[in-house]
């Protein structure tokens, strides 16, 4: 019994103190992974903020963006051109979604819009495969997947780039939402369509803006994840990892998506490395979901979410 308690509560921390360089490496790995989760979660937050709808298709949008980029590059387009074209495709997609899916469903229940995004999910999945094929593709954006040493700590170039990109993107978006009039308009639209229209907010424009931005975020996430693990169908499943991030951070908070991602990224890496051997590993696979479950029980609105209080 004492042995077990020791193994759980003492030994892992002793390991951490005993080899700080390794601990820093684990932490950096965790932060990098966390920011990647945050990138995906951000796409969800954007659309949720502006329409109160959980966009089931966000994961597939990431896949679709990556597929388009790789497909164009395979056709011989240089990276900047392919990237530019992908941006255009994602913005065109936003216009199409607004026209075909959202506009006919104005003022419908949120659950109906949610169902529509499930349909969108399957459509994009099929369409992406039809257009670009279903093989695993290698995405090479010119950043080598190698490491360099800083004071004895290994840092992966690709992970570093991804982390910096994510951090920059998040800063821009946070400012966009908190400070600009569009940000306020977005929050207004999410809250009440009718009222938003009556104060002169054009729903159409707002939706196109939001879905375009979500599409751009999907490109960034798709590039980063694609470069790391290849562009393949399973890319759309990273949306599943974004879900606990959202539960932790709160569905409506941009900073929440970041903090949530970091907690999960760092938490699961630490758990895996230091406590994994005790239970035979694989902590990384369930840590996020268990944490999310705990949050649902204790603080369902998440760390930064708005508490909805309904008076009756």
């Amino acid at each position, binding site marked *: 019994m004492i042995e077990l308690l020791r193994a759980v509560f003492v030994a892992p921390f002793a390991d951490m103190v005993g080899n700080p360089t390794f601990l820093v490496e684990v932490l950096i790995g965790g932060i990098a992974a966390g920011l990647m989760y945050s990138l995906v979660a951000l796409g969800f937050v954007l659309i949720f903020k502006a329409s109160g709808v959980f966009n089931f298709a966000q994961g597939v949008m990431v896949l679709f963006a990556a597929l388009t980029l790789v497909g164009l590059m395979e056709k011989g387009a240089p990276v900047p051109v392919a990237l530019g074209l992908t941006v255009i495709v994602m913005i065109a997609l936003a216009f199409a979604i607004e026209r075909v899916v959202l506009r006919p469903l104005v003022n419908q229940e949120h659950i109906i819009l949610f169902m529509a995004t499930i349909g969108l999910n399957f459509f994009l999945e099929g369409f992406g495969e039809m257009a670009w094929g279903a093989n695993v593709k290698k995405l090479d954006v010119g950043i080598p997947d190698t490491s360099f040493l800083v004071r004895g700590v290994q840092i992966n170039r690709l992970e570093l780039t991804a982390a910096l990109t994510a951090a920059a993107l998040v800063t821009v978006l946070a400012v966009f939402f908190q400070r*600009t009039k569009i940000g*306020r*308009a977005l929050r*207004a639209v999410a809250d*009440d369509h009718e*009222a938003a229209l009556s104060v002169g*907010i*054009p729903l159409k424009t707002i939706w196109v803006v939001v879905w375009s931005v979500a599409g751009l975020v999907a490109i960034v996430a798709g590039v980063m994840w694609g470069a790391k693990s290849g562009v393949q169908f399973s890319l759309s499943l990273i949306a599943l990892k974004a879900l606990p991030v959202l539960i932790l951070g709160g569905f409506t908070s941009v900073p929440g998506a970041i903090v949530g991602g970091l907690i999960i990224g760092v938490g699961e890496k630490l758990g895996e490395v230091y406590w994994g051997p005790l239970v035979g590993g694989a902590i990384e696979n369930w840590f996020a979901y268990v944490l999310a479950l705990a949050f649902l029980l204790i603080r369902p609105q998440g760390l930064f979410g708005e508490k909805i209080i309904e008076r009756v």
Partner: protein
Amino acid sequence: MMATALGTPAGGASGPALLSVEDVTVRFGAVAALSGVSVDVHRGEIVAIIGPNGAGKTTLLNVISGFYHPRSGRILFQGRDRTHLKPFDVAALGIARTFQNVALFKGMSVLDNIMTGRLLKMRGSFLLEAVYWGPARRQELEHRAAVERVIDFLEIQAIRKTPAGRLPYGLQKRVELARALAAEPHLLLLDEPMAGMNVEEKEDMSRFILDVHDEFGTTIVLIEHDMSVVMDISDRVVVLDYGRKIADGPPEIVRKDQVVMDAYLGVAHD
């Protein structure tokens, strides 16, 4: 900018109308919600729309504010045809409204709610706004000041930071009015501003409506059920019944109108 009209005499038909609803018909399937309704509203008037439940009052307001579009007929505002405009275009023309069931942004603070009323007045430069710099900062402060004036005017200083969804109903209605006023509208449409209020709250609301009218010269069209309120504050009363206009005139004349009394009380069968 707001025109400071000195208030036209009751039932005044002087000058060109600010708003003309001309022979408007609205149908939902086979039901005619409005049939051939014409109403003129003149600058500086307070016009009350009354009528039994289902008479088409809210439909009329929704047509004016662009939420519904008429099957036939025209709507002119400031002499220009705007029959087919969308709600946000209508808002841009200077028509603000409130809703029967209070449509506030419940998760946002009272201050932010009222600030949304000024969205149309803000000029956008994303980059400037994003860094909150120079002109953008000055603009934000200007709008803040305008909103504070509305807040003072409606005496809601104390609840500035409260999320709108947590306020009691009467105050929510007042915040909704504040948001509409923040847009400095030429025409203010109020859908049952006093529904569900107690006598004291109704008196407050009546006073605010009259103050708005006196202070800013805002033209007001309101729907109201409480006849004593209607008689007190309106210059003119329009009566709808089954989607048709059955009376239009100064309150003291309309209240004695036989057709109106029949519509409200039912016709005696003898």
